[in-house]
């Protein structure tokens, strides 16, 4: 009995140990070294934000952010492994080491810079506005004060929209729920990123809807790394890949390939960073 238990315990520890033996003491705290040694870059992303990050039926991740992640891993010469995160745990996962890089449509705000480090240049940008039915004739935010808009829980603009414009926000776990709720008349419109609304409006399903209100608080998105990695080889590496993607127009191509109209921010960044000779 004792022998059997001991053997079983030993096997368990050995199996678990071999799984992570690559992260041995030689690399210290150098994330770049650890990632190359492990042969895998763990990237945190959402899986419910089509077309930036979503799932295919076979369980694989797809979308613009996934494409960017694959590109970075390719440049590093390792495999990209995507880990699903949500707004409740994305920063904790990064801090704990469960992911090394976060590409999860996170807005680069001062509050968040206290917890994680954002890599610059920023890889995307968006402001928030409301998707409203064409039947609604409002053109200013003040006209919809007191009305209810459906939104996704955890979005950074839910609080400002309520505080500044007096709209009531009904928040759900995902965009499918917000759409279903709007269809039932529980809210007059959706409070979302302007790029996301643009993607919707290019679909004939949303022909009866519009985006009439001025876009608010255009805030760049940032890829997050641990604070210790910001001015370390790993942070600099990601910075370099990002700058090159802006310069070569790869980000604009990825945007197009995922069915998103080229956004002003990416066009601006490409113009600023592009080659002065070619």
């Amino acid at each position: 009995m004792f022998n059997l238990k001991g053997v079983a315990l030993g096997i368990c520890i050995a199996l678990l140990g071999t799984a992570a033996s690559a992260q041995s003491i030689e690399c210290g705290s150098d994330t770049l070294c650890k990632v190359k040694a492990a042969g895998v870059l763990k990237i945190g992303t959402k899986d419910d934000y089509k077309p930036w990050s979503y799932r295919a039926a076979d369980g694989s991740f797809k979308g613009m952010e996934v494409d960017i992640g694959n590109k970075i891993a390719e440049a590093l010469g390792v495999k990209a492994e995507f880990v699903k995160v949500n707004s409740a745990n994305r920063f904790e996962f990064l801090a704990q080491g469960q992911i090394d890089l976060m590409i999860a449509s996170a807005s680069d705000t001062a509050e968040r810079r206290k917890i994680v480090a954002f890599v610059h240049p920023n890889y995307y940008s968006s402001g928030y506005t409301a998707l409203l039915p064409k039947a609604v004739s409002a053109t200013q935010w003040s006209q919809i004060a007191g009305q209810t808009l459906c939104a996704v829980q955890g979005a950074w603009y839910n609080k400002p929209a309520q505080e500044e414009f007096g709209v009531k926000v009904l928040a759900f776990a995902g965009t499918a729920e917000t759409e279903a709720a709007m269809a039932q008349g529980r809210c007059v419109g959706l409070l979302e990123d302007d790029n996301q609304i643009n993607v919707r409006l290019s679909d004939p399903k949303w022909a009866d809807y519009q985006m009439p209100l001025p876009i608010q608080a255009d805030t760049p998105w940032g890829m997050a790394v641990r604070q210790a990695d910001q001015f370390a080889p790993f942070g600099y590496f990601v910075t370099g890949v990002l700058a090159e993607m802006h310069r070569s127009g790869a980000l604009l191509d990825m945007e197009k390939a995922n069915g998103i109209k080229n956004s002003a921010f990416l066009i601006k960044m490409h113009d600023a960073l592009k080659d002065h000779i070619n």
Partner: protein
Amino acid sequence: MPHLVTQVLEWMPFVLNGFGLNILMSLLAIVAGTAMGTFLGLGQISRLRLVGVPSRIATQLFRNAPWLVLLFYCIFLMPYQIRVAGQVIVLPSWLRATIGFSFPVAANFSEIVRGAVISVPSGQWEAAQALGYGRKATLFRIILPQCIARMIPPWMNLYALLLTATPLSVIVGVEEALGRTQAAVQAQSDSSVLIPMYLALLGMFFFYTWPINRLSLVLERRFRTK
């Protein structure tokens, strides 16, 4: 309508895979929780104040705390990887969530144990004492064997409760059936699949849990003492 059915079926392997994780978490948590709960339950009825009081406090605390809050603590306070004898052991989210579930399971099982021991007629204790058994021997050789039979139905109920609680882990990011259903609904960007997909999810849980429930009813009837 048939288009909807094929769409839903296409995503079923993805969701069922997640359901497998729910089942795994529930099996591990019930084993761990039962083991811990046995100690806690016996601790509650202990004559020693040093053992009895902490056991009672722990039981009450973990019974009354929301499962979700316990999950959060385990996910955020337990590290992602720990060093044991120079080797790094990885603790993925689902494992930490499982540990989080085993605490309320242990507390509930502790109450089941305590209730079962109390329900044994005091005549048994007195008879054992008359025959010269000490308290510990009485407990382990006479009382507990009688309790096991009457602990099984509430224990199976507890398992069913645990399994239907595992979807809570979606909030802390575990990729189980509910989270996968949500992701599948998102990917199809078609709110008309919302109902069929959730119906399928409901079905999965029902067809796994209901037989367990029936079994526990059968066992309860068999072991009922009138």
